[in-house]
């Protein structure tokens, strides 16, 4: 007589003689993902490590293997501390203000109003993500143009009586890169949080209402606890995404004025591709990979992702 546990094990693992099938399934289902991971993550990392120990420069020639690039990173590069500080402000600012908080506000408000209006507003907030990066930034460049023709200046000058046009690209470049990235980043949080909010059983809200809970109490005691996993996921995922992406910054400010908006990933790009110092760029990129892995691990621990990823103990039929 078999126990229920045995039956479950057989159901999960298959019957005897299925080892070959399991191997086949492994290859079929996980093979492509493994190949892609190796091709687009492992191999580039290995190449990056190899290049970082060379003097590969503008003519793509290697004349010696050296640790000189690491000496530069650790000793002589005086820009690096400023770049790292700015990267922290940019990632933390975008994440805290937009990707999580604003995404959450959008999700809560658009699920609280009528479904049609909610979908409409979510659609509007998805537009920046759907439009090509270049187009999106062109609109930004027009909006913040330092002339009277810029959208922001038109509004400020005509509606608020400002004397002359503002040059936000020079006076507030960091705020601009945070806002322009945040408008796009918020939509991802919004979608994920909306899905999670929709997944909360409705009777909980009714029960809370019967108990006399107001809107904020419902959010505080029902919605937010249910969003713990999505918030953790969005935070870690977007941190990594913000750390390595720089295309909007490159298009909007080119990393300037001076080095004001040169975040770490853009700094790697500028060193490698604008100055032709590929070996040095590779060494800098390796630190970025290390920082990314460390941030992911800290996030994993901090948010206790292991527990969140466990199989549910109660099966709901």
């Amino acid at each position, binding site marked *: 007589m078999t126990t229920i546990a045995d039956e479950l094990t057989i159901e999960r693992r298959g019957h005897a003689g299925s080892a070959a099938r399991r191997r086949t399934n492994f290859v079929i289902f996980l093979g492509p993902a493994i190949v892609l991971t190796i091709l687009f993550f492992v191999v580039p990392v290995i190449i990056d490590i190899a290049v970082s120990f060379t003097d590969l420069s*503008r*003519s*793509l*020639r290697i004349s010696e293997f050296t640790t000189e690039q690491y000496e*530069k990173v650790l000793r*002589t*590069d*005086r*820009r690096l501390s400023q770049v790292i500080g700015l990267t922290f402000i940019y990632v933390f600012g975008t994440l805290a203000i937009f990707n999580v908080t604003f995404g959450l506000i959008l999700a809560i408000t658009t699920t609280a109003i009528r479904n049609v209006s909610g979908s409409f507003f979510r659609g509007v907030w998805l537009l920046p993500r759907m439009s090509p990066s270049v187009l999106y930034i062109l609109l930004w460049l027009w909006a913040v143009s*330092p002339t009277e023709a810029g959208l922001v200046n038109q509004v400020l000058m005509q509606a608020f009586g400002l004397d002359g046009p503002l*040059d936000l*690209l*020079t006076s507030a470049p960091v705020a601009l890169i945070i806002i322009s990235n945040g408008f796009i980043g918020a939509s991802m949080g919004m979608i994920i949080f909306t899905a999670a909010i929709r997944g909360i059983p409705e009777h909980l809200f009714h029960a809370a209402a019967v108990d006399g809970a107001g809107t904020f109490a419902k959010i505080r005691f029902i919605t937010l606890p249910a969003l713990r996993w999505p918030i953790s996921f969005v935070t870690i995922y977007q941190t990594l995404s913000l750390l390595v992406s720089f295309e909007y910054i490159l298009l909007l*400010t*080119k990393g*300037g*004025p*001076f*080095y*004001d908006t040169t975040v770490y990933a853009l700094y790697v790009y500028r060193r490698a591709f*604008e*100055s*032709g*110092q590929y070996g*040095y760029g590779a060494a800098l990129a390796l630190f970025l990979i290390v920082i990314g892995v460390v941030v992911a691990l800290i996030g994993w621990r901090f948010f206790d992702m292991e527990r969140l990823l466990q199989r549910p103990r109660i099966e709901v039929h």
Partner: protein
Amino acid sequence: MIHWKIGTAALLCAALAGGSAAFLSATPLLAQETVKLELWSRQDPSGPLRPGNVVKAAERLNKELAAEGSPKRVEVAVRESPAKGFDDDALQLLKVFGIGEGPDIFIAAHEWICAFQEDGFVLKLDDYISKYPQHFGTIFPSLWSSAKCPDGTYAIPQDAEARMFFYNKKLLREAGYDSAFVDAMPERALSGDLTMDEVLEIAKQVVDKTKAQYGVLHRPNKGPDYIMVFQAYGSGFVDPETGKLLLERDKLAAAFGWFERGVKEGVIPANNTAMEFDALRKEFYTGNAAFWMYGIWDLGSVGFPTYGLPQDEKAFFADWGWIAGPAPQKGGSPVSLTHPIVYAIAADTKEPELAARLLGHASAADLNTDHAVTTTHLGIKPEQLEDPRYAKAWPLARATDLLKITKFLPNNSQFGELNGIIYAGIQGIESGRLSAEKAADFVIEEASSTLEDVIVK
């Protein structure tokens, strides 16, 4: 049956005879060998005939080869790069050579040529230059120095030009300067009487007293013009004894100080480096800026065709003009910069001789004059001055005055990178992130940590 066989044989014979005749008559054609030479050129509206003249030169060379009885014929394939400037283009081409995909011939800004020489990508041309005096013998001797690296000549000058400060006379008059003062400015600049700070003063008067918003505008990317300011304040960037890069802190700080004062006075816009090239030109040519630091060809490429500046010499100088880069103080030396573009041949081309002859024909006086007069660049040979078309193109003749005091960018293989650092320093000053002193320190620190063999004084 026999009749049929004879008929077949006759047909076969006829076919064979015809075939042989056709083959024999075609033999000279078959023996002709087409040599394909690939030319790398940046897509550049300010000089479409740089590659265009090489393509035309192939016809002349092929005629010459036919006359010599040579079976070889040259075909030029132009490979255009979309780089925005010559610096980006050179960096791109260095990579292309690095992976073994380089062209046979390329067009580059002269200061990059030694970077190609250092990596062994470019052919030394001294022997070819002396072998073909009919092509290269009359090129202005001064231009050759822009094509030299420490051990020889590696390029052929394609053109020259003059960099200056254009100015809007109308605005200056509106600001209260009389015509005599305004018209005398070029002379005063050349004699060292007009100073860099006086330019800022004049520009300030224009900004304060007229509707014009800007005093002095300069290019918004890495390039040669602003180097004039550094040369005016004494930076040569190369140690004449060793040929190594030389950075002199005080001289750098003095030049950066001029930009700093310009921004503080509200004459140079803080966001000059964030503006678009076309927007800057528009501001100047439509009368919203007093000075525009750029080069003579801008008149031919943009000033005349796009903004309708008067093409008649007298009418032009009534309201517009240009001055040399003024001296740093009264009695000092003014500056002007010429930035020759050069032709070069790849070290690994299979046909160096043909490539050299091809470039010889591309450097013909008439073809070069076509380029000069259509794009307002200066010619490379004295015989071009006699061409009526050249004489008619008055901006060329007038800009030739500046050649007396002109300087080149240093032909140091690392100058391109150093220039990028200098540009970042200007950007730091104008956007208020650095003081002149800090900018000098920044350039020295950056250059010392990223470039090799930099002498700091």
